[in-house]
């Protein structure tokens, strides 16, 4: 692809060569050789400007080549070329002006010019003038993106001019929107700006808020006596409020050199230390200066003697604060604009808040489905059969690793997932059946010991996974069509992979209900769990039913593993991350009822997101308080949200 592009470039260059002789680009590049090679954003501006303004027909190609990291410098003479990879670590170079192949060189003789993304953005901005009316829609898009990233007043006119005659509908909409935003920021006519603000009011785009917010940015200042005129005042501040304490006010005075800085304890100590005279400071023996009262007394004596600045007293502070007025003023001089922007932002703020709540609810729903998926297998083995399976998490892990192995064998991501899901089910179903036959069936009467035995299996499986797959995380990549996110607007979005997990959870809920309520196996399972002996006397083989039920629960855990691996990671510790959570989901929801598990997952998911929202800077705290809440919750509803009643409760 790159090769084709470069060839096309070369052809293009050949055609225009004759006319271009006069304005070759290489001399300009040479003139700025140092700064181009140094490649730092602070110093690069003259080079980009010179190229963009050179008028050379190659300017655009040079800039594009540069931004694509395809510009090379020949070390021997410092000449710049477009380069492409040739055979055995050699690079083929093309002259910018002639477009001809300038030879093939080993990498050691060349220096690749690697602009960082800051410089690339600047090049992008410089390219706008060429690209905005380029016949290629992709380049026009690039130009719009550059303007969006770095809006400048000089783009307003060309952008407006380019709107007419834009054939692409999508780009036209983008250009219109961008024009409005630039108008808000840069138009000379206040009325036009206010109109634009009002026109766009209620829009949820981050770009609009990013345009409006700088308009209402304020600065705090202070003046003696009265508020100076000619400023666009936002607010007069009274010292002593929550947002503007008296300390803040005094600090502002000190910063503006309108008041003496307070003398800190450290200052006092340093002043005392500097004035030790024969074991005494201001007549007080040094040994007695080990408390604040003595230190203050000594310092005051020093201050009186002029050897140190006097301490600022409360009275001084009061007087200083009383004689000044504190205010916040807008940077934007026009009050009309700031009023309109404020009104617009308030309106947007309300809508943003609503949408954020919606987004949070979606997140919580997604977390719910993940917890539900992780716990549904457990809801069967623990909830229905009463078996504490500590190795449940390891079944999830086995499913995830199955997905990884399948992906190694079948590189196509879509196909591999389609294969991996049933295969994961088969693998963990088999493992579950084996475990039930070999271990668990001997322990049905001793639930607490099942816990220990399955815990043993859990650590053995975890270590086995480490021995086989190593300790590094393994990649499990979602198919292309699950990439990206479903975006309602700039606030509400949810990734497709989470939607897929949600749907998977729904499917499993359906499958579970179907099996339990509509099939022979479900009927037999319910019979066996309610009364095993009675079931056996009715001709049901409890051993077989238990085996199949346990296998089913394990198999579902395996499929959950594939899903969890897709959105998080595949490591040997994957399972242990979910085991405690899964148990709590089942217990909180109410054992023996799938709706209970769903309710439990929903409660934990929504609660966790809720606490995260209250304290966004500490996700760990959210988890802590969630668990504390669950502990307290269980005290009041020991049987969970949906408790079985009567005989089925098996108390």
């Amino acid at each position, binding site marked *: 692809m790159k090769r084709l592009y470069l060839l096309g470039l070369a052809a293009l260059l050949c055609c225009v060569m004759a006319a271009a002789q006069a304005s070759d680009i290489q001399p300009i590049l040479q003139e700025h050789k140092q700064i181009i090679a140094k490649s730092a954003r602070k110093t690069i501006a003259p080079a980009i400007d010179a190229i963009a303004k050179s008028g050379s027909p190659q300017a655009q190609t040079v800039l594009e080549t540069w931004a694509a990291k395809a510009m090379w410098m020949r070390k021997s003479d410092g000449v710049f070329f477009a380069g492409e990879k040739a055979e055995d670590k050699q690079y083929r170079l093309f002259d910018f002006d002639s477009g001809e192949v300038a030879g093939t060189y080993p990498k050691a003789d060349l220096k690749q010019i690697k602009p960082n993304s800051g410089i690339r953005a600047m090049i992008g901005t410089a390219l706008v003038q060429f690209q905005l009316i380029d016949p290629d829609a992709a380049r026009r898009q690039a130009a719009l993106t550059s303007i969006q990233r770095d809006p400048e007043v000089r783009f307003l006119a060309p952008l407006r001019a380019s709107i007419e005659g834009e054939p692409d509908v999508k780009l036209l909409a983008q250009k219109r929107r961008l024009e409005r935003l630039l108008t808000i920021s840069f138009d000379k006519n206040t009325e036009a700006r206010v109109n634009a603000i009002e026109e766009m009011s209620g829009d949820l785009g981050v770009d609009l808020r990013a345009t409006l917010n700088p308009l209402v940015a304020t600065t705090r200042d202070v003046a003696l006596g009265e508020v100076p005129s000619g400023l666009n005042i936002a607010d007069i501040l009274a010292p002593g409020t929550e947002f503007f304490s008296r300390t803040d006010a005094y600090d502002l005075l000190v910063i503006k050199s309108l008041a003496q800085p307070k003398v800190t304890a450290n200052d006092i100590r340093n002043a005392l230390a500097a004035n030790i005279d024969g074991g005494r400071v201001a007549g007080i023996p040094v040994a007695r200066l080990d408390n*604040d009262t003595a230190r203050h007394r000594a310092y005051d004596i020093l201050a009186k003697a002029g050897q140190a600045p006097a301490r600022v007293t409360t009275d001084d502070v009061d007087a200083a604060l009383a004689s000044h007025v504190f205010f916040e003023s807008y940077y934007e001089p026009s009050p009309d604009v700031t009023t309109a922007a404020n009104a617009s932002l308030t309106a947007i703020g309300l809508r943003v808040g609503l949408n954020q709540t919606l987004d949070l609810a979606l997140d919580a729903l997604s977390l719910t489905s993940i917890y539900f998926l992780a716990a549904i297998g457990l809801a069967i083995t623990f909830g229905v059969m009463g078996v504490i399976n500590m190795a449940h998490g390891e079944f999830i892990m086995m499913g995830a690793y199955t997905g990884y192995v399948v992906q190694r064998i079948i590189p196509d991501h879509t196909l591999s997932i389609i294969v991996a899901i049933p295969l994961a089910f088969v693998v963990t179903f088999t493992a579950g059946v084996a475990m039930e036959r070999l271990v668990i069936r001997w322990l049905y009467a001793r639930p*607490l010991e099942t*816990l*220990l*035995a399955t815990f*043993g299996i859990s650590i053995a499986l975890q270590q086995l996974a*480490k021995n086989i797959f190593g300790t590094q995380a393994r990649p499990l990549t979602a198919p292309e069509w699950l990439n990206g996110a479903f975006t309602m607007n700039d606030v509400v979005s949810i990734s497709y992979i989470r939607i897929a997990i949600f749907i998977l959870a729904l499917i499993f809920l359906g499958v579970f209900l179907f099996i339990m309520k509509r099939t022979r196996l479900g009927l037999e399972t319910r019979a066996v769990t309610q009364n095993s002996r009675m079931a056996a006397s009715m001709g049901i083989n409890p051993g077989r039913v238990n085996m199949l039920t346990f296998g089913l629960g394990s198999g579902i855990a395996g499929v959950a593993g594939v899903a969890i691996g897709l959105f998080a990671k595949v490591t040997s510790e994957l399972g242990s991350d979910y085991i*405690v959570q899964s148990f709590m989901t089942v217990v909180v929801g109410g054992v023996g009822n799938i709706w209970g598990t769903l309710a439990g997952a929903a409660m934990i998911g929504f609660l966790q997101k809720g606490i995260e929202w209250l304290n966004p800077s500490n996700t760990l*705290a959210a988890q802590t308080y969630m668990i504390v809440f669950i*502990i307290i919750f269980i005290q009041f509803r020991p049987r969970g949200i949906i408790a079985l009643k009567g005989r089925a409760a098996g108390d």
Partner: protein
Amino acid sequence: MQRSFIAKNPSVLIFFACLALFTLAVTVLSEGFGVGLASTSFVKTLGKTLCLCLIAVAMDLIWGFTGILSLGHFAFFGLGGYMIGMWLMYERTRLIVVESLSQTEIPPTPSEVVDAIGNQIFGVVGSSEFPMIWAFADSLVLQLALVVLVPGLLALVFGWLAFRSRVTGVYLSILTQAMTLALALYLFQNDSGLRGNNGLSGLQNLPGVTASQDFVSVWFLWASAGALGLGYALAAWAVSGKFGSVVRGIRDNEARVRFLGYSVETYKLVIFVLTACLAAIAGALYYPQAGIINPAEMAPIASVYLAVWVAIGGRGRLYGAVIGAAFVSLLSTWFTGGQAPDIPLGFYTIKWVDWWLVLLGLSFVAVTLFAPKGMGGLIDLWTRRKSPNRHGLDLGPDEGALREQEASK
């Protein structure tokens, strides 16, 4: 017939004798007080093992005798460690700070000293102020009291809530696991004031003690052995009399005991708080030997391991818990230390560092399936004690209640 406590529990005397002999032997072999055959690191390992034995005794009391499978006792163990760690850290840092501030020209004010200590302790985690929970850290006596009070209070509140609402069986196990997880996560936060993930470190350096670790390790071994002996005796006394009978009754059939008029909840609560305090004392002795305590010590898995030790050793008998804890933790040290020889199979070499956990895991399964009495069962073989044959009938209707094999003792 009134018999003395000792006469009813001959195992206590045997245990005391074994413990004394063991302590004496290690002292003689140690580098500090003896011929130097046992390295200091090994003495420390043994000292720590004794502490683990003590918490295993507590675990046996609550699980083996009362039938409550608590998966949260390492929370109390850790809390005990934190309480003593706070004093050790504060005092050690205070000595350093006072020494360093004495070189300045102006003598420091008390608040300057405290600030400097705070700066030293919390500078590592990017803070410098003392949180509220350090209020008593300057007093050894108060912190020692807190070693028992804080975990005891936590156990009291948690136990009262849980037992009051009749949470039993596996639900209680999962609830205790949630408790220790919540505590660990809370302490992981820097805001909790106990240095987050870094925890409290350098605890092996006792403030004001200049003796080398060769001696300190033996002192702690003595202290641990003493605590284990006392704890064992206390546990044996608790389960020997009428109280013990009621407690075992609760294990075998809680409902029947309740109908007999006993306040089941009170008994459970007493045992729960008592074992929490024992665990805390074990922790307070363990962490100065380990040198560092951090929240990972309280992760739920630690408490599950504890249950496994007791199961392997043989629950329902106190010496079983001690044997289990000592055996598994020492074996674990041996295997992870890389000292176990590799086994070449030709096509694959079994490295024990990789395979030890697999072996351990499978041995849990084997013990649960084939030797529910654990290693203590070996002693039954020796003393030729046999279980009465009841043709497989339960002793009680409650699942998880004592089976006949366990009832035999």
